[in-house]
């Protein structure tokens, strides 16, 4: 039976959703505070000070899975010269450094939406044979899944469909997202039926039996 961790699934989905240009993962290189996180990888002489403002900084793992693991905060300031991100409101506990503080930077959707999409694709796609990954679970806990690539198609269908409802987007972008979620849905449905073996009922119109 295939297995994976939520962190691996979420990062794979985010990379596909946003492209590697805008979705970033990293490790804090110096001790931060409850409102700052420092990573020298973010130092840039090209990026503007607004580059990451509005992004979600998500603390994905910490030592012993303690806070602020699992907390997401919106970036309110970015200092390109030092690679420092400031968030508001504050994390509940100061951000650490090194392996004690790995993070993800999500440009648009709240990371909770990605976790919800993973659970939905897992439960809905398996006809509830697989249970959702509990929110309290450590992100690095191994969980049984039906197939990583197929699960990702289901989660991307969920996310892009929800994203396409955003009336602030222009009609062309919404149409593009709609085309994409339709394609993800077809891939997911086909993968579930042909590769995993989850059959769906055939609906028969009255009078045609």
């Amino acid at each position, binding site marked *: 039976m295939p297995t994976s961790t939520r962190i691996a699934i979420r990062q794979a989905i985010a990379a596909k959703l946003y492209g590697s240009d805008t979705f970033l993962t990293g490790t804090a290189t110096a001790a931060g505070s409850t409102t700052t996180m420092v990573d020298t990888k973010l130092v840039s002489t090209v990026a503007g000070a607004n580059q990451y403002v509005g992004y979600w900084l998500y603390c994905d793992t910490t030592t012993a899975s303690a806070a602020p693991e699992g907390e997401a905060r919106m970036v309110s300031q970015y200092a390109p010269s030092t690679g420092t991100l400031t968030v508001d409101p504050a994390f*509940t506990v100061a951000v650490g450094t090194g392996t004690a503080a790995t993070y993800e930077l999500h440009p648009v959707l709240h990371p909770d939406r990605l976790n919800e999409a993973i659970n939905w694709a897992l439960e809905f796609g398996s006809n*509830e044979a697989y249970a959702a990954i509990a929110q309290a679970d450590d992100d690095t806990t191994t969980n049984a899944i039906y197939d990583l690539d197929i699960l990702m198609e289901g989660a991307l269908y969920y996310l892009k469909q929800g994203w396409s409802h955003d009336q602030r987007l222009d009609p062309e972008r919404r149409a593009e997202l709609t085309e994409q979620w339709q394609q993800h849905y077809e891939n997911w449905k086909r993968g579930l039926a042909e590769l995993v073996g989850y059959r769906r009922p055939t609906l028969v119109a009255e009078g045609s039996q």
Partner: protein
Amino acid sequence: MAWATANLQQVRVEVLRRLYAYRDNITGTGSGGGSVSLIEDTGTTDGVTLESAVYSNNDFIGAWAYVPSVAAPKVSRVTQYDRDAGTLTLSPALGATAASVAYEIHWLIPPDRLNDWILQRSREGSSGAMVTIAEATAINISKFTLAEGVLADALRWLAKRESGPGRQLMEQEAAHHEQLWLERLALEGLNPLVNRLNVKREQTEAASVLRRF
């Protein structure tokens, strides 16, 4: 294995997540407040917070706040938002103080409308067995199945507020959810007669035209 039951809150949350995936705040747990205000400035309970230096003070205005655990009225509309304090000011007043309890933000569709649709879909899916549903009533239909039916209703409702390509996209998606609702009902073994009638209803040109009004 029996299918899991659902209650109103579970189905509402499922629908909110699907409708407003692009929104940061959908559900949360308050850290303070009263009958005319809702505060969440810590995010300690669930990692979600209403406070943000990045939002504008116009965000949230016009949205509905729904607090399931208070006495009726559980619904109120956001009239003011203070981004620094993470406070939503509500009008009219909720039926009781809403401090430190779970809340929902309904951005476009009034929560009572969602509850109506859940009731209608529950009645249809149960062949009339579920007539009245309270907040904690266990509905013998999966939340995922009910969410598909309610999403079809919600998308049609939203489509009527749009015009041009946006409306077409909404109608197209509503039809997709209607199909999934029927498939999921069949999967749960719920009243195939209703399923067949629905297929017929959905596939007629007349039904397609009627849904637009």
